[in-house]
């Protein structure tokens, strides 16, 4: 403290009270207190939003601010618990780096090294400018020149994009569960997240490292299954938390799970071990038996051993056990080793067939369809005028994959190629909602692509790397700042819905994407944002109506007071499955609709895209650590403290060969790029694999904790052209993020 004032305070003494003087400006920033004692600690029931099972939360809130988060008793998703990420959620809410006000750039030059010269603008100014730019783009170049990098949710946001005829809405699901969505639609009747592990006796995991990912709805189920005496078998190149928990773990060459799955089908079919009751009554096995038997005959366990490195005797034994010791289940999910090679469409089809042969589709112990409260969307409550037809070219080339087009998901991995090579200059306007370039294969290519866009808006709650190239930045509210009704869809034997109640008003000027949808809608497509009485759609009234129609309460306040509403009912297994024409309501092993859509009716063996070679002799694998969620939590101070950075995890044998010591910096290269990061030696990784955790390598200035920490795994992952996918038979559009090969050298 400065001496001048200190001395003065001493000199003035304590007793001297001067007459109060007026203080200019004070009233601009302070106002009389509302009065009344500040509220003590209150409990608010809400739901997590870090990952999709949305575990129930009870939040302890003081004075409008969250002090503590814990699991919600009675909630089926989290079983009354939160994972580390969920418990640390308040650190995201109050992250100092959060985007706070709408901002716009004043420097027209764009580039990673350019200072954008941000200034604050009002929401009205931001929305007016965005609406003007969108209109100008559509008028001059058509709706195909608009790029929306966002999921099609919430429903108001989807309505806005539909009303504007947006053709190019791109999302990340090609890196995630898109293959499963495509396959389940035609084989079992639809994508489901529900795996009844608890009642399963045999759990077969291809990659599927769910315990290490800490998705509670699944992890808890597998733990319960083991306690109930179930057997867990894990195929995975590296030894993980799931391997340790499993009864048996088999290391497998990366990208060869398909060979093992095909051989298991061969064993089960040739030895007639399948669940006869289910297969005869509810599948098209009988109708296509000749084709099916002939097709799989070639895939013997001996053949699979040559490809995968898993012993034929083990494959045969596991196949027999899987068929005999049911109920059995083989989940297929997302970025956890199994669904991200060039052959993942076939792998997911093969896994689906295994489940069908086990006869556990919508049966106890198997993959089942959720029983949920039916919460209507905005289009059901306020039916819109007819949407305009979507006219124009898909910049990612997705129209060449009709099965993916149908389900309207993806495609991150072909976006940069489309923008730079296929349709250069086509995209004039882009809007990024809650996605960052870090989530793309080969992010530097995506940066190049984004530089070709005239006007870019980024809406997020944290400063992602994409912000650097934005013209306008909008601060997004996060999950703890909004109201919603969240139906359970991971564990859903009977309907249960949790009220996601805002535990805190949005900080600073953060707003929801639904607000943006309505405000842009008012400016650009007003007819779609009016209620029948002619007033503007109000999100709070809409939510009240949803709650009422779903039978959750009189209105949202009534529902929120209950916190959790459920309707226990007996589980009645389905008897009809696939609803596409020609399926006759049965599960389809052989998919007769596929050939017309560029796919094989039965899964055939194809190798992964990149194979180790002289220049890049090693497999390159990425993973999502338990303590982080994708690329969104690295700046969370608590999670950052637990896992601040990533490493190149290699086997000590590889380290010895290259003279690499623990902690030493290494250069890892692939045909796409190179990264530098410290090595970590571990016996858990095979000697021919380099493993790197995803989510790190945020560009330096952007986030105070995560910025500059670690390396960006995606720099080594090649992006793709749509033609690569078509040529390789990747008909469900898997992004191939596990497909790279690499070299390593010490620095």
């Amino acid at each position: 403290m400065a001496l001048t004032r200190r001395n003065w305070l001493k000199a003035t003494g304590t007793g001297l009270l001067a007459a109060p003087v007026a203080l200019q400006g004070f009233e601009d920033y302070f106002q009389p207190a509302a009065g009344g004692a500040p509220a003590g600690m209150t409990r608010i029931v809400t739901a997590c939003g870090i990952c999709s099972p949305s575990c129930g939360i009870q939040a302890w809130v003081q004075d409008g601010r969250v002090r503590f988060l814990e699991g919600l008793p009675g909630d089926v998703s989290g079983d009354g618990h939160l994972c580390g990420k969920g418990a640390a959620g308040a650190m995201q809410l109050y992250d100092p780096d959060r985007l706070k006000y709408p901002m716009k750039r004043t420097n027209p030059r764009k580039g990673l090294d350019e200072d954008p010269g941000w200034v604050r603008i009002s929401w009205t100014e931001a929305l007016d400018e965005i609406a003007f730019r969108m209109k100008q783009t559509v008028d001059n170049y058509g709706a195909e020149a608009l790029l929306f990098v966002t999921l099609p949710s919430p429903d108001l946001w989807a309505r806005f994009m539909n009303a504007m005829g947006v053709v190019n809405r791109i999302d990340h699901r090609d890196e995630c569960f898109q293959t499963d969505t495509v396959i389940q639609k035609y084989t079992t009747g639809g994508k489901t997240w529900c795996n009844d592990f608890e009642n399963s006796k045999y759990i077969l995991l291809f990659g599927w490292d769910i315990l290490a990912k800490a998705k509670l709805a699944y992890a808890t189920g597998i733990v319960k299954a083991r306690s109930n005496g179930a057997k867990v078998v894990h195929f995975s190149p590296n030894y993980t938390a799931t391997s340790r928990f499993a009864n048996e773990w088999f290391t497998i060459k990366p990208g060869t799970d398909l060979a093992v799955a095909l051989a298991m089908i061969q064993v089960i079919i040739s030895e007639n071990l399948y669940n006869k009751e289910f297969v005869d009554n509810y599948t098209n096995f009988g109708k296509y038996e000749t084709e099916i038997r002939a097709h799989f005959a070639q895939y013997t366990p001996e053949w699979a051993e040559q490809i995968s490195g898993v012993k034929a005797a083990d494959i045969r034994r596991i196949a027999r056990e899987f068929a005999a010791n049911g109920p059995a289940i083989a989940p297929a999910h997302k970025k956890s080793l199994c669904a991200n090679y060039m052959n993942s469409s076939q792998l997911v089809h093969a896994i689906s067939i295994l489940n069908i042969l086990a006869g556990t589709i919508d049966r106890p112990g198997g993959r089942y369809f959720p029983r949920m409260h039916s919460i209507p969307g905005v289009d059901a409550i306020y039916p819109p005028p007819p949407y305009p037809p979507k006219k124009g070219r898909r910049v990612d080339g997705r129209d060449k994959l009709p099965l993916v087009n149908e389900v309207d998901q993806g495609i991150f991995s072909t976006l940069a190629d489309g923008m730079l090579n296929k349709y250069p200059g086509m995209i004039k306007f882009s809007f990024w909602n809650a996605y960052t370039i870090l989530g793309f294969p080969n992010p530097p290519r995506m940066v190049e692509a984004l530089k070709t866009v005239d006007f870019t808006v980024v809406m997020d709650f944290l400063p992602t790397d994409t912000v650097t190239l934005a013209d306008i930045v909008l601060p997004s509210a996060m999950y703890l700042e909004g109201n919603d009704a969240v139906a359970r869809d991971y564990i859903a034997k009977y309907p249960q819905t949790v009220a996601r109640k805002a535990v805190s008003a949005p900080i600073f000027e953060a707003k929801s994407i639904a607000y943006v949808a309505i405000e842009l809608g008012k400016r650009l497509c007003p007819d779609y944002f009016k209620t029948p009485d002619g007033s503007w759609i109000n999100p709070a009234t809409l939510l009240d109506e949803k709650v009422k129609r779903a039978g959750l309460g009189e209105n949202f306040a009534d529902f929120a007071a209950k916190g959790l509403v459920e309707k226990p009912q007996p589980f009645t297994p389905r008897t009809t499955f696939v609803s596409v024409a020609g399926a006759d309501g049965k599960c389809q092993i052989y998919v007769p609709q596929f050939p017309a859509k560029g796919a094989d009716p039965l899964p055939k063996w194809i190798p992964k895209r990149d194979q180790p070679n002289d220049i890049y002799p090693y497999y390159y694998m990425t993973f999502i650590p338990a303590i982080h969620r994708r690329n969104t939590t690295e700046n969370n101070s608590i999670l950052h403290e637990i896992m601040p950075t990533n490493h190149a995890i290699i086997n000590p044998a590889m380290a010895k060969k290259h003279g690499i010591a623990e902690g030493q910096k290494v250069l890892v290269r692939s045909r796409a790029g190179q990264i530098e990061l410290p090595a970590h030696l571990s016996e858990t990784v095979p000697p021919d694999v380099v493993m790197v955790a995803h989510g790190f390598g945020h560009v330096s200035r952007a986030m105070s904790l995560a910025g500059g920490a670690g390396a960006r795994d995606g720099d080594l992952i090649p992006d793709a052209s749509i033609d690569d996918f078509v040529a390789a038979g990747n008909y469900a559009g898997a992004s191939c993020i596990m497909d790279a090969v690499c070299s390593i050298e010490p620095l």
Partner: protein
Amino acid sequence: MSELRERLARVYAELGQALLKPPAERDAEIEYYRLFLNPQGSPCPPWQSVWEKAEGQPPQLFGESHHRALGWYRRYGFEPAAKNEPADHLGLLLLFYAKLLADGEPAETLEKFENEHLRWAEPFVAKLKAEARHPYFQQLAGRLDENL
């Protein structure tokens, strides 16, 4: 003495407002946002709980010092006009400190407030000095340094 007190109150009120409101001149305005509200990460976040690892808490907005600062304001019958923003913005703290001075609060009170809410200003001002590129903020950092 009361004249000196009044003069000091004005200085702190002025410094507080300089931190709360961007200057009108365009380059200085851009610099204000770059330093304090940068959507690409601010070098000088102006909130106390970002700087103080109080009670084992990691850097965050609306941390312990926000709650303590609110308590101070309320005891004197005030609340910040911006409801959804942290109460421990250095600008608010200085403005409130000026109010305490102007109201003739005793030295013990002033000292207590300083101890609870102004000690972190030292590393903040040092960072501001190091980061400021525009003369307006170089001068502001200098004046803060002199007076804190």
